[in-house]
């Protein structure tokens, strides 16, 4: 029997992950050579270019949402993992405490300092700064700090009574000087060539100056210096440039048979607002035999308005009224990303950096494989 190429409906059906009351079906992708007899499915760069699409939904500096359509989960997941764990940023790594008489303990204070996201000039951060590696010989550690791998910071605050405050004042911020220690109190101490790369708007400073680090009372003092290094999220989450980078698959809601009248209202309530809209059965639909709309002209009917907003709660599958009337699914090759930057990078730049990173990784390994054969 000669092989028939798959119809458009068949190709569409293969892309859907079935979501049923208690189970999910067709989870894995099947677009591999040899899976369907007589079909090709081998890697074709032009076919990928034709089928691949990017759609933006939101692009704020610290929150971007976009869809990658026509890509496999393994690739999409690689981008997500790279964004979280492999994109470098600067963070405080070592804290040298000279004096800390505040109620917050040294180690807790150090941890809090480490988690503060810092921004810095792009060129200095990515071209000038290099990795810092702990020397194998511990005694050499003081010879391992250079202007190109360590950034030095200082925090010197002392809480004192505010003589000018009124005697009835109860707000500690007015009653005392430096009652609250904020991220903006951290001072950057440029060394060597750092002046050239990190000055003015490119200076190294906390993304959010209003992060509360500690609270002090008169007589208490914090005096410490800090070292920042470049690092990646796989080492410590404080280096991760994203607060969250996640994706979900595009939900698919298919109404197979008409849902009319009061049922339509109930159906809409099974979904988050905006997913299902209520429409009127038109004259044309009512006139069509076998459509299920005969004799229902002017009645309310449920239509799918915006499946992207759905959370796929499956609530509609619990009701007998909608049995066999609705099919739920997810599109296997439609990834809706949400990238929330912690502030060191623009959200969209994080994704582009992730793509560049994966390419660089593959490039390096290609050289390694050639080297291995030699």
């Amino acid at each position, binding site marked *: 029997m000669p092989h028939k190429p798959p119809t458009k409906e068949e190709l569409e059906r293969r892309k859907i992950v079935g979501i049923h009351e208690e189970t999910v079906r067709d989870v894995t992708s099947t677009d591999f050579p040899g899976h369907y007899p007589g079909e090709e499915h081998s890697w074709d*760069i032009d076919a990928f270019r034709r089928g691949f699409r990017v759609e933006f939904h939101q692009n704020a500096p610290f929150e971007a949402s976009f869809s990658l359509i026509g890509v496999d989960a393994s690739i999409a997941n690689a981008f997500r993992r790279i964004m979280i764990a492999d994109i470098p940023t600067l963070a405080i790594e070592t804290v040298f405490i000279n004096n800390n008489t505040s109620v917050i303990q040294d180690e807790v204070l150090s941890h809090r300092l480490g988690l503060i996201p810092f921004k810095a000039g792009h060129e200095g951060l990515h071209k000038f700064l290099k990795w810092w590696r702990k020397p194998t010989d511990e005694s050499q550690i003081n010879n391992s700090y250079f202007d190109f791998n360590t950034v030095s910071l200082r925090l010197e605050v002392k809480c004192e009574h505010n003589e000018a405050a009124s005697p009835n004042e109860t707000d500690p911020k007015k009653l005392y000087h430096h009652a609250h220690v904020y991220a903006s109190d951290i001072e950057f101490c440029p060394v060597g060539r750092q002046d050239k790369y990190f000055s003015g708007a490119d200076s190294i400073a906390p993304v959010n100056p209003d992060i509360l680090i500690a609270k002090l009372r008169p007589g208490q003092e914090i005096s410490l210096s800090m070292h920042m290094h470049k690092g990646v999220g796989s080492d410590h989450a404080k280096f991760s440039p994203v607060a969250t980078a996640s994706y979900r698959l595009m939900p698919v809601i298919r109404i197979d048979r008409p849902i009319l009248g009061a049922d339509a209202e109930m159906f809409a309530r099974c979904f988050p607002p905006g997913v299902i809209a209520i429409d009127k059965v038109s004259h044309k639909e009512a006139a069509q035999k076998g459509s299920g709309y005969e004799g229902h002209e002017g009645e309310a009917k449920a239509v799918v308005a915006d499946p992207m907003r759905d959370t796929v709660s499956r609530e509609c599958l619990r009701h007998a009224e909608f049995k066999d009337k609705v099919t739920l699914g997810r599109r296997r090759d439609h990834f809706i990303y949400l990238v929330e930057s912690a502030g060191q990078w623009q959200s969209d730049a994080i994704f582009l950096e992730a793509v560049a990173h994966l*390419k660089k990784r593959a490039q390096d390994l290609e050289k390694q*494989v050639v080297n291995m054969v030699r």
Partner: protein
Amino acid sequence: MPRAKTRKEEPAEAESDIAMEEAPTSHQPEAEEDNMSVDQDDNDEAGAANEEEAEEEEEEEEVQRVRLLPGSTPTAASFEFLNETHTLGNALRYIIMKNPDVEFCAYAIPHPSEPKMNVRIQTFEGTTAIQALEKGLRDLQDLCDIVSDKFIDARAKFGEGVSA
């Protein structure tokens, strides 16, 4: 004094290594490690530090991270990648599986505490596993180019785009 200490420890370690020969390959210490520690002992401390500075970047490139595991034939081979994770493993597996000359491809991380990722490739006659691996890595680079091109286009079209 610290030198004498390390010298004493080394033979003790070597003895226990012999007993470990039956252990899986990933558990066996590599011979190179021993050589390196001897070299460091012989070097002047200051001299070694200077060399490290100068070669810092190059050194990272030079370390061989891909290895052909024993028992491989031209059309059926296992590779060991050091310092690679699911990130590259799964993406590479997918793109190699897309090659019609490949009969089988899978990846595994044998143990979560070891920074190792293994890839198994079996091909049909006419090509080799190494060629399939190289093609996979090249295809992955092409894919990345298209993704970033289309991403930049879509961002420009969306309008609000902030330049990277």
